């Protein structure tokens, strides 16, 4: 073992290390990541210390051997959407532009903890989309069959099949009785913060500098080529600059003169007081906007539609809150007396077709990852993987080949819902 490997080995998490540290009063645990000052220049500067930026750094280092990398985060690590989402992972997509990408993400989730030596509590408890009508069933069948043709697991359940999973659902709802569901057993939840921390720890151990409280205030470009970024801690040079700031993509992109097919929107999420286990799967309502799972701590974590107007405020208003509660009561009225203990907001990059962008930009050396709409968290590993590939090899990864910026001009949009160029409808 070389010194680097020894250091890594000494910091390995295991039951043995947990016991050994318990005996010594837990005084010997090391910081999960270093807190370095930025160097004058890096091969790659990643803007955004969220899940995607940190995953990109990890895969750049691990898969491509590029370790002279800095991740710049304007606030604390993981302060954006990676710590604000509802923790759901799934690959139950419809279109060929999306399916291979999200399935690769699912596969990376499945091996994440061993890869990172960090327990992010990947819980493959299953994702169930209930349906209430024949047209809805047909649309889910089309989707489920597309999944199966791509080698992704999917099951079409009838009422009895749904009942086995979620007996407390209001099957005979007076308006929208449950007729069945599309189930992806491999979908589930992941402890969101731990994803950021696990990637940060892994990237840090391979030498990536993670620099918090370091807002990027400018992108220096000369003759159409990026030279580096101006930051709260001074200029940092870079051969390549990778933007990974979903929610604020337009704001940061504007620093390089980019105009994007993106609007920023707020979405709220909610958690109830902790209760004993009630819901074992992730479930979505088909006749309104409501989806729910139960955290390991016991709170029901749920959400609904986006607020629907451009916003950078990271919060929402009452109409969506009421709409979500109504959806919850229509689907599972046993939760009526449970109480919401906290609501919060995240910022979404809503694109014009509801699908993301991983691509080069017109500025040489400037790369873009964003436009994740609702799909950002579940995409974290694959987005990091494919963005790292693009940065390392200057060509799109095959799984992200459809996520090009020029698709809007050509018309090869990836519109899962068929809503057209209206971001708040995706």
């Amino acid at each position, binding site marked *: 073992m070389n010194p680097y490997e020894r250091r890594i080995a000494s910091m390995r998490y295991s039951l043995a290390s947990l016991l050994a540290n318990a005996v010594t009063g837990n005084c010997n645990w090391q910081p999960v990541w270093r807190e370095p000052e930025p160097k004058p220049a890096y091969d790659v500067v990643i803007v955004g210390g969220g899940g995607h930026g940190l995953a990109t750094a990890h895969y750049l280092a691990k898969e491509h051997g590029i370790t002279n990398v800095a991740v710049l985060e304007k606030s604390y690590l993981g302060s954006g959407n990676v710590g604000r989402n509802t923790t759901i992972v799934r690959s139950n997509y419809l279109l060929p532009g999306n399916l291979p990408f999200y399935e690769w993400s699912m596969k990376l989730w499945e091996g994440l903890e061993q890869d990172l030596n960090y327990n992010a509590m990947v819980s493959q408890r299953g994702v169930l989309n209930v349906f209430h009508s024949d047209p809805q069933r047909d649309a889910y069948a089309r989707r489920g069959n597309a999944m199966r043709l791509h080698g992704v697991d999917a099951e079409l359940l009838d009422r009895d099949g749904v009942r086995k999973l979620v007996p407390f659902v209001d099957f005979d709802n007076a308006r929208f009785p449950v007729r069945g569901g599309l189930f992806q057993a491999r979908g589930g939840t992941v402890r969101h*913060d731990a994803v950021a921390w696990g990637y940060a720890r892994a990237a840090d151990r391979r030498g990536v500098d993670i620099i918090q409280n370091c807002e990027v205030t400018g992108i220096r470009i000369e003759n159409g080529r990026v030279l580096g970024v101006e930051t709260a801690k001074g200029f940092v040079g870079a051969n390549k600059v990778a933007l990974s700031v979903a929610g604020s993509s337009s704001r940061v992109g504007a620093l390089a003169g980019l105009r994007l097919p993106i609007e920023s929107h707020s979405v709220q999420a909610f958690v109830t007081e902790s209760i004993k286990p009630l819901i074992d799967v992730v479930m979505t309502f088909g006749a309104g906007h409501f989806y729910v799972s139960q955290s390991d701590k016991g709170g029901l974590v749920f959400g609904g539609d986006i607020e629907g107007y451009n916003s950078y405020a990271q919060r929402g208003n009452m109409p969506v809150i009421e709409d979500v509660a109504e959806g919850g009561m229509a689907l599972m009225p046993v939760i009526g007396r449970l109480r919401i203990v906290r609501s919060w907001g995240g910022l979404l990059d809503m694109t014009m077709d509801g699908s993301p962008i991983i691509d080069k930009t017109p500025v040489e050396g400037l790369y873009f990852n964003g436009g994740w709409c609702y799909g950002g968290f579940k995409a974290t590993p694959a987005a990091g993987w494919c963005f790292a590939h693009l940065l390392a090899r200057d060509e799109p990864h095959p799984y992200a080949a459809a996520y090009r910026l020029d698709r809007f001009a050509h018309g090869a949009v990836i519109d899962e819902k068929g809503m*057209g160029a209206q971001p708040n409808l995706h």
Partner: protein
Amino acid sequence: MTSQSNRLRDGGLIDRAKTVRFSFDGETLTGYQGDTLASALLANGKKLVGRSFKYHRPRGILTAGSEEPNALVELRTGARREPNTRATTIELYDGLEAASQNRWPSLKFDVMAVNQLFAPIFGAGFYYKTFMWPASFWEKVYEPAIRRAAGLGRAASAPDPDHYDKAHAFCDVLVIGSGPAGLATALEAARAGARVILAEEDFRLGGRLLAERYEIDGKPALDWVRAAEEELASLDCRILRRTTVFGVYDGGTYAAIERVNDHVKLPPAHEPRQRLWKIVARQAVVAAGAIERPIVFGDNDRPGIMLAGAVRTYVNRYGVTPGRRAVVFTDNDDAFQTAVDLADHGVEVVAMVDARAMPSVKAKEIAAKAKAPYFANSVVQRVRGRQAVKSVDIAAPNGEVHRIDCDLLAMSGGWNPTLHLTTHLNGKPVWNADLSALVPGALPPGMSVAGASAGQFGLAACLASGRLAGTEAAKACGFKPKRHKAPKAADESTEASPVWQVETSRGKAFVDFQNDVTISDIKLAAREGFRVPEHLKRYTTLGMATDQGKTGNLNGAAVLANVTGRYVGAVGTTTFRPPFTPVAISALAGHHRGPDFRPARLAPSHKWAEEQGAVFVETGPWLRALYYPRAGESPQDSVNREVANVRTQVGVCDVSTLGKIEVQGTDAGVFLDRVYANTFSTLPVGKARYGLMLREDGFVMDDGTTARLAEDRYFMTTTTANAVKVMQHLEFCQQVLWPELDVQLVSVTEQWAQYAVAGPRARDVLQRLVDPGHDISNEAFPYLACGEINVCGGVPARLYRLSFSGELAYEIGVPARYGDALIRAIMMEGAAFGIQPYGTEALGVLRIEKGHPAGGELNGQTTAHDLGFGKLLSAKKDFIGRFMAARPVLADANREKFVGLRPLDREARIRAGAHLVPKDAEATAKNDQGYVTSIAYSPSLGHWLALGMLARGPERHGEVVRAVDPLRGEEVLAEVVPPCFVDPEGERLRV
């Protein structure tokens, strides 16, 4: 134990004449009207009330308010069970049933308490470091075990049987909190003439005045409260008791929950349990008081350890003493008042422990008054007793340790302003070094703060700041307040020099009680790099419990500051977010449950269809007749019969749900040319035409028919699903894109009842309905004709010769109020010709037989070329979507295009949602060439048929493909055919 052994002989705002019986963990106990469950439990000497989240530590009652982290119970039973209910906020009512939670087998003996022994392993974030091997064990072994151990109470066992109300209110000044500051605010604002709403979370006005023995104007403060209440009742002030303002939203919108009937066993008939208020206030004054801080020391969570202010509340307001031998441990003079209040009721105060380095003159005076030994510059170093405090060790500065027996420890680390509502719109609190507390920072528009919420802790200061806030709020609303006499009061001591934590104490020192976050956890987190409050919270769960860190967050910041060598203000705390206290999901949903989840739209023939025994289906908000069963028929039989009857005789179907829009004006034709892909300005008066509408991105948005009733008058129909969307789109085009056009739009979907009368005998039926003088012969009224006529003796009607079924058919519209009469008339007149009603299922079969694209094909992903409508794209004019539709990708011949599919095996059934692959190719993504959009059993052809989208479909007619449906394990070979299966020449509709 005798009944109410800890009830004081006198005092308290309880009605001793009204005994209330209740039960806790099955034991029947009594209290008085005016008690909370917490005060009644304490009165009965019950100290052990719950168990903590992680270590299952025995817990008692820490507070007397909504900030309570420990005393959580399951209230009520069965469908009304409410887990995690704070005993400190439950008003006692006769027959109340409560049970402790998160313990097994009993509250006193909880097996899971063994977790405490493993605390060194179960430190902050331990789960991130283990449970990784083998990977599959997480879901199967580790997670289920963790989930079972976690959680607190249990959800109800059945749907919530109560109902919930919603109300809107508008006011000039909303006052949140009715303590001295809130009452003073409300009085000044209301006296100035402002419309005031005063919201108080408690069932009694007065706030802190209920718990203290203050005087105002030389009389007991409660006299002043009573007078204020009376005066407010005489002014324009609505007082909402039991009402918590829980969230602040944009535009001066405040959300509040009124607990209308939580203080009784069952809501009376026709009354809601709770009411959600949405209050729009021009000005709002937050006068929500303050929350006391615990001190962090070893075993500070033992039952019998309580916040000092809470002890005073129980003594003064409820006439209950939480113990008989009390120790007061604090870092401020105000809390020592507790000793006097206890001593005055005959409770022995055995020690006053002052954690401050400098002895306090004031404290010494109080000690003398309470006859309590005073320990200056001392701390409680150790607590003995597991399920109740038995004694404490007090460490003096000279190193001496005094062990003192006691059964009550009142503690106080100072107070935090209740400023949560000031942060809901992203406001950040600021550190006030004088108060050693966070105080409100920048406030949202229209909001101000008063009293303790603003850091004005003294009574006189509260009254003064309330008066000022009320006056200013009234002025901001345009009122001219007069000066009124100020109430006189003294300020109690508000000096603060917090000690936060006892470094030298033994045992687990809790910061977040409910979530069992201790000093060691925070130290470990800091050691591992989690040094900002957000990281600390997320790593240790500090502040994530049901109380959201109301008592623990700032202490956590203080411990973190201590570990990392900063000061508390520099560390700060995490963001407070709505709701202020937890809100029931039922209350947010209100009446929108069950059948009232969404408004139901009923077609004009609904009542008649019900009489016929129709089976209905939800299509969006509409309830439509799906089919009309007859005795002995299966659903499929009914649909087959209805379809066959249309093809051979005549049927009638309610199509009123289609979107209907009047388009009028001299530029109506030009306007339609711009919104439709095809041309309408050339349509002759008295004719209708199929229209295709694109989105601006070039994909198909909607279709329908539009009839020209006059030069400047068109009548448009849209699909049922897109009616609202199309109207909105057209109004955008009219108002924003082309305001210069003379065109007006009105949605008349609700105004016209419209029926399709279809089948070879359709004209025969209509002839009997149409008033004399209207010639509807094929010559006079050919296919696609339209006109305004009268029916049934003078009823105005519109007749369109349109056919969705491919048969001779009409759509007839009458004003909606005649809809019911018309369906009855059609059925009566049609009887002679074998008329039968048909529902949307038969409608669907008829259109699939004819190959008209509908919902499954108009899915927002298809282009005009895909659907075979490329010819409709006019090249002579601009229209919405024209430019983008011409992009090569949208017109690519390789795209999936609209086809018909006929199973080779005539018995086989193709499934909608199946995918299409070449006949001999593997069913993989690589070979995926399309999908099935719609299917139907065709009674006309005697087999199943399907429509779908297939790559290069129209070039492949005659080819056999496989419809694969791995979800259902089916595969069907199908011939690709043109989408129209019946009468492809369209002869039958022109006869």
